[in-house]
């Protein structure tokens, strides 16, 4: 792999190891399965029907979000740099009879191939795992059609997020494997929005994803201090 690819090999290795767990709704990725319906309905609340919309999920992993968007009729491409998660994603889509075009390709390269091509670009729970998140956001923004939407979710860099995402989720409650996240790579919403807006996107919505360990429920609500989800639009009058 060329050296300028925006990837941390250790991160890829981390996800390769647990790839077989992607679709175990009670396994390591249980939280992702729990929040996926929330992410999907957040996307739908901004896009309406996803039917026939050109959609790309960047950092698709085992395909939890990509497949769910394909199931409601979107034409989905899923890209990732981990071969093992992609294999799992392809196998699962095949078993489920859902069509998703999975590709192992860096997002920067994809953006060069297909500028201003997608109605919907999603990049969820991925920015906190890469060396240069700004470059990812730029590439995502470039792929959005004028009038199209982009969605990013990640973890905020706050004391609370350290306590919840690292101390509670990894060490105490063991909701996700130890070492899943590195707090230093968490991103403040202001920074993310800044990067996205300088790449030509306009922020149209922001919400927090909150976890209640008592009833094991997740919900979308105000408060971006831990897990948050942002919606952007590319203005129509602007050419990419």
């Amino acid at each position, binding site marked *: 792999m060329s050296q300028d690819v925006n990837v941390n090999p250790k991160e890829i290795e981390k996800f390769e190891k647990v790839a077989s767990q992607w679709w175990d709704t009670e396994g390591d990725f249980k939280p992702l399965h729990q929040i996926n319906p929330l992410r999907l309905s957040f996307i739908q609340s901004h896009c*309406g029907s996803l*039917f026939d919309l050109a959609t790309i999920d960047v950092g698709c992993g085992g395909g939890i979000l990509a497949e769910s968007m394909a*199931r*409601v*009729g979107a034409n989905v491409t899923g890209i990732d740099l981990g071969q093992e998660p992609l294999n799992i994603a392809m196998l699962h889509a095949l078993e489920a009879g859902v069509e998703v075009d999975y590709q192992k390709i860096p997002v920067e390269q994809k953006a060069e191939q297909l500028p201003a091509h997608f109605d919907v670009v999603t990049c969820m729970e991925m920015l906190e795992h890469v060396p240069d998140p700004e470059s990812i956001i730029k590439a995502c923004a470039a792929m959005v059609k004028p009038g199209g939407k982009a969605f990013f979710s990640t973890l905020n860099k706050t004391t609370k997020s350290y306590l919840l995402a690292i101390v509670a989720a990894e060490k105490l409650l063991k909701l996700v494997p130890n070492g899943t996240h590195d707090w230093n790579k968490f991103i403040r919403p202001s920074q993310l929005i800044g990067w996205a807006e300088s790449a030509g996107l306009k922020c149209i919505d922001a919400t927090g994803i909150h976890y209640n360990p008592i009833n094991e429920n997740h919900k979308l609500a105000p408060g971006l201090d831990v897990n948050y989800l942002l919606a952007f639009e590319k203005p129509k009058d602007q050419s990419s």
Partner: protein
Amino acid sequence: MAANQAQYDIVISGGGLTGAAMALAVLKQAKKPLQVAIVDSANKQQASGGFDERVIALSYGSAEYLHKLGVWDRLKSHACAIKNIHVSDRTYYGKARIDCQDYQREALGYVAPLDAIAKSIYAELKTLTGGNHRLDEYFANGIEDIVWQKNEVQVQLQQGQLLTAKLLLGCDGGQSRCRQIAKIDTECKDYQQYAIVANVQTTLPHNNKAFERFTKSGPLAMLPMTENRCSLVWTLTPSDAEYLMSMDDVGFANALQKAFGDWLGPFTRIGRRQNFPLQLVHAMQLTQHRLALLGNASHTLHPIAGQGFNLSVRDVACLASLITKALENGDDLGSYDLLSRYQQLRQEDQQTIIRLTDSLVHCFSNQYFPLVVGRNVGLKALNYSSGIKRLLAQTTMGYVKE
């Protein structure tokens, strides 16, 4: 357009109770001309009747809705009113009576044969044709495939016809073909309990009384039917159910007598017994692009079919009212907004049922599940224990919300 192609506003998959009621509801309420097709892989239901005919309990709310659709007058002679409910436990202490007069109603609910309900709905549907509306029936002709387009959905039938519609409604039951083709997953909760269902006859008249007894092995319900029959629903552990199923009628009648008591005298006839696992199956989504699921296609609560149908009636009432409004406003009948509104409204109701069922199973360690009678008639309160009363009060399932 080729001869084997036809265009509709709405194609309904499934000509059972839910599908037929849906067709009737939209055609009856539509103020503008509406083209509807009903598709079913089975033949049109033939009235079977007989001692073992399948019955369901209609809540007062469901009966009211059927009245609104013009079905009730045809149906009422076949329906048996539940005028009061007698609840008791095996110690004979915790007794409660609920009477329809306490609620200023002529009945708490009704028990009616499936066949009679279907026949009444189809008879009423017949009166609507010939006007502005069109209703085509494709029976013994299942769905081969479904192709979704942005602005319509194409339904390919086994006999070759191609139907296009703005909206496809999956009213095609627990094994919904629409749900399968749309690849909508289901979730199944197995309560590790069985229920034996049978029609039985007793020496003493039931006098329109329903019984719910909490026996050692599980709750036992007797719903009054016409011709002094009762519909028995007896919840049991899997092994008890298997044992009771293996008995002959005399042995079963004795065991039933022992568990139920002498409230209705000796049992004179035990009809065909059926044994079902208690399961709650529900679809993970109620809608997809230009598709909505109704009735058992979206939720099946076995074997308490009565509750299932009351839920179906609320699905029908909700969606029919949204469709009628969209038609009036000249909106797309299969729009994302309409469907997401339906999903949102119905999911709340469905979640309530699932929560209630879970609570009943978990809080009362299976002893009080499924409160067949009380739930079937959708009582606002059951004057038995404050816990149950509270749980039932939360649901108030008997009324059709629109």
